[in-house]
């Protein structure tokens, strides 16, 4: 099932509602529903800050601290990115979130033939440490954290962030990076993978191990149900697959002989907000509970703080439409409301023009204001988990929990997450569901304002963010200069050491940091991995 279904009679009265995850919504909920589902306050929800954290991870929710707003930013050159960072900080944004261009995400330098036409197009181009020095200039790296939205080469970007921090006098222990660093979801959705499953997971294990010992304020993995949902997964599958993917990374680090309590507390999640709002709220509440239970029962995690599902609940990209783009401003506001009602620690919204282009400064600011006015005007900070105790919400939260568990069992039955991704089982499943959604839109079973209902009368003009060819040329020119100025001996020496460490299966992080400090390029470092690991072979679709 991938489409929320409304069964109606000839007078447009709703007879049944079936949510995407397969839950039937009743017209009325009463205390009887709670007894029917065996609802137990202490066991099922408990107070906020108490296991199983269904009601939230902080006892006082947003009273103690409003959410962190982290709009996705990154444009063309590192200089432009730096300016946009400062603009968003000046407007009250409390965290940074870096978008990288595709060549950087795929480990190619700006002057590589594979990068042609893509340099700086969907994010910042990064070739060497020089680019990070420019992008993070005059930013207080001990005060503000940076999300690094990159996966296949997240290890390289984390090393570069450390190198840049140290260059500006910040110790690795005080800076806080959140590299996305979730490669399995890239293989399911989004598609920015390079290496095969096993070495790709090993690199993630390396970053987790390294962060634990050297960069304790860093959150080395952000597990993304988000993109799996964007690719066609139901809300229940989004959570089920995210938890199972997180478990793959945990298992990798445990196999190195570490104690789970030493690292799992730094895991974070990136989850989506589009869809039926009640289903989303139930999803987030059930997700917190299941993640905590997974850690406690499967991994024997001891420290209660390590059981928290911390995360960015936001985005909503697939929910936005190209038709009547201004409607996306209103959609964004409702998505933000869902995130707030669900107790998101961090949030960000896709901007209304993202169905066309990367956001303009104007639309990115509108998204930020949407988030701010919820917190400061509408009363979302007043009390924690305000929907708790609703017969309806508590009932579907329990039902959602069951649906998520069923999806997890399905994957375990298939042979586990690694097998399901390597063989394309999940990819085919979500692609099929995505097609069902499109068919639902065409048949009218699924309603979308401006797309298949209320199609008339709103202007479709959107101001576009233009690709700047000159800044791409300048990036390539700057790379040339860096290559001329750097010590070739240091570059060769550090790359050689990285190569040996890679071959010997050592943790590559300290070697990457040395390469970055010698101004080795992203492409040079990635090529060593490419040679050693090979590339992921995409499973067939049909």
């Amino acid at each position, binding site marked *: 099932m991938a489409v929320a279904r409304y069964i109606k009679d000839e007078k447009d009265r709703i007879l049944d509602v079936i949510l995407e995850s397969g839950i039937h919504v009743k017209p009325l909920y009463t205390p009887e529903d709670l007894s029917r589902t065996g609802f137990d306050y202490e066991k099922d929800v408990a107070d906020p800050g108490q296991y199983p954290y269904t009601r939230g991870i902080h006892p006082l929710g947003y009273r103690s601290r409003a959410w962190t707003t982290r709009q996705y930013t990154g444009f063309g050159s590192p200089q432009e990115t730096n300016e946009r960072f400062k603009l968003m900080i000046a407007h009250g944004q409390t965290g940074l979130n870096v978008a990288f261009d595709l*060549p950087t995400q*795929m480990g190619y330098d700006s002057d590589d033939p594979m990068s042609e036409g893509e340099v700086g197009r969907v994010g910042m181009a990064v070739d060497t440490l020089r680019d990070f020095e420019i992008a993070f200039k005059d930013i207080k790296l001990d005060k503000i954290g940076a999300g690094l939205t990159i996966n296949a080469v997240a290890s390289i970007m984390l090393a570069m962030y450390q190198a840049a921090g140290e260059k500006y006098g910040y110790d690795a222990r005080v800076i806080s990076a959140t590299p996305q660093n979730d490669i399995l979801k890239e293989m399911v959705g989004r598609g920015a993978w390079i290496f095969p499953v096993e070495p790709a997971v090993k690199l993630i294990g390396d970053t987790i191990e390294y962060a634990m010992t050297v960069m304790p304020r860093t959150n080395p993995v952000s597990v993304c149900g988000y993109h799996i949902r964007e690719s066609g997964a139901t809300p229940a599958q989004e959570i089920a697959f995210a938890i199972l993917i997180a478990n793959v990374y945990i298992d990798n680090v445990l196999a190195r002989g570490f104690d789970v309590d030493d690292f799992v507390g730094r895991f974070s999640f990136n989850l989506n907000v589009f869809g039926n709002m009640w289903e989303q709220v139930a999803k987030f509440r059930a997700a917190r509970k299941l993640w905590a239970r997974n850690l406690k029962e499967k991994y024997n995690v001891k420290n209660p703080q390590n059981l928290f599902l911390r995360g960015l609940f936001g985005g909503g990209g697939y929910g936005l439409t190209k038709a009547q783009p201004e409607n996306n401003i209103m959609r964004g506001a409702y998505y933000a409301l869902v995130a707030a009602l669900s107790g998101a620690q961090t949030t960000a919204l896709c901007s209304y023009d993202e169905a066309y282009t990367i956001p303009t400064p104007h639309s990115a600011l509108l998204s930020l204001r949407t988030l701010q006015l919820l917190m400061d005007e509408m009363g979302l900070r007043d009390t924690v988990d305000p929907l708790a105790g609703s017969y309806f919400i508590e009932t579907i939260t329990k039902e959602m929990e069951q649906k998520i568990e069923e999806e997890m069992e399905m994957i375990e039955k298939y042979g586990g997450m690694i097998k399901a991704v390597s063989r394309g089982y999940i990819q085919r499943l979500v692609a099929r569901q995505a097609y069902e959604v499109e068919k639902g839109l065409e048949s009218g079973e699924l309603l979308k304002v401006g797309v298949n209902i209320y199609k008339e009368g709103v202007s479709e003009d959107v101001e576009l963010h233009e*690709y700047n060819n000159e800044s791409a040329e300048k990036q390539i020119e700057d790379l040339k200069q860096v290559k001329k100025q750097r010590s070739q001996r240091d570059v060769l020496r550090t790359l050689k050491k990285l190569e040996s460490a890679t071959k010997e299966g050592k943790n590559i992080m300290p070697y990457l940091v040395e390469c970055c400090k010698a101004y080795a390029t992203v492409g040079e470092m990635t090529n060593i991995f490419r040679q050693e690991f090979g590339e992921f072979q995409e499973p067939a679709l049909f």
Partner: protein
Amino acid sequence: MEEYAMHEKRIKILIAKPGLDGHDRGAKVVSHALKEAGMEVIYSGLHKTIDQIVNIALQEDVDIIGLSIMTGAHIPIVEKLMKKMRDEDIIDKTVFVGGVIPAKDISKLKGLGVAGVFPGGTPLSEMIEFIKTHMKKA
């Protein structure tokens, strides 16, 4: 045999993802839809160069190359494809483009030789109808 001859020739189409972008929900949805509409669909997979795409088109002898592009780089990508198709002498094959395509670029793409442009949000039925009608004329 007679019955076979009465059927139209089955359209064979390559759905290709050129370049580094990995957002393939659209490409996969379109692949499913065209297949269900009775066409033979080859899906290229991700991160293909223009040379690789033209090579698949040659080897599979497809009637249509459909490109899915989300990054905004559709103009340079299509220019490159057309050049390669001329070099390989397969410029007679039909090219369609889908993805994140601003309205102002549609006529530019058509000027480059693209037969049909389907920006995100185009109904699948409309796209299938367009392809079938176009291939009858071609």
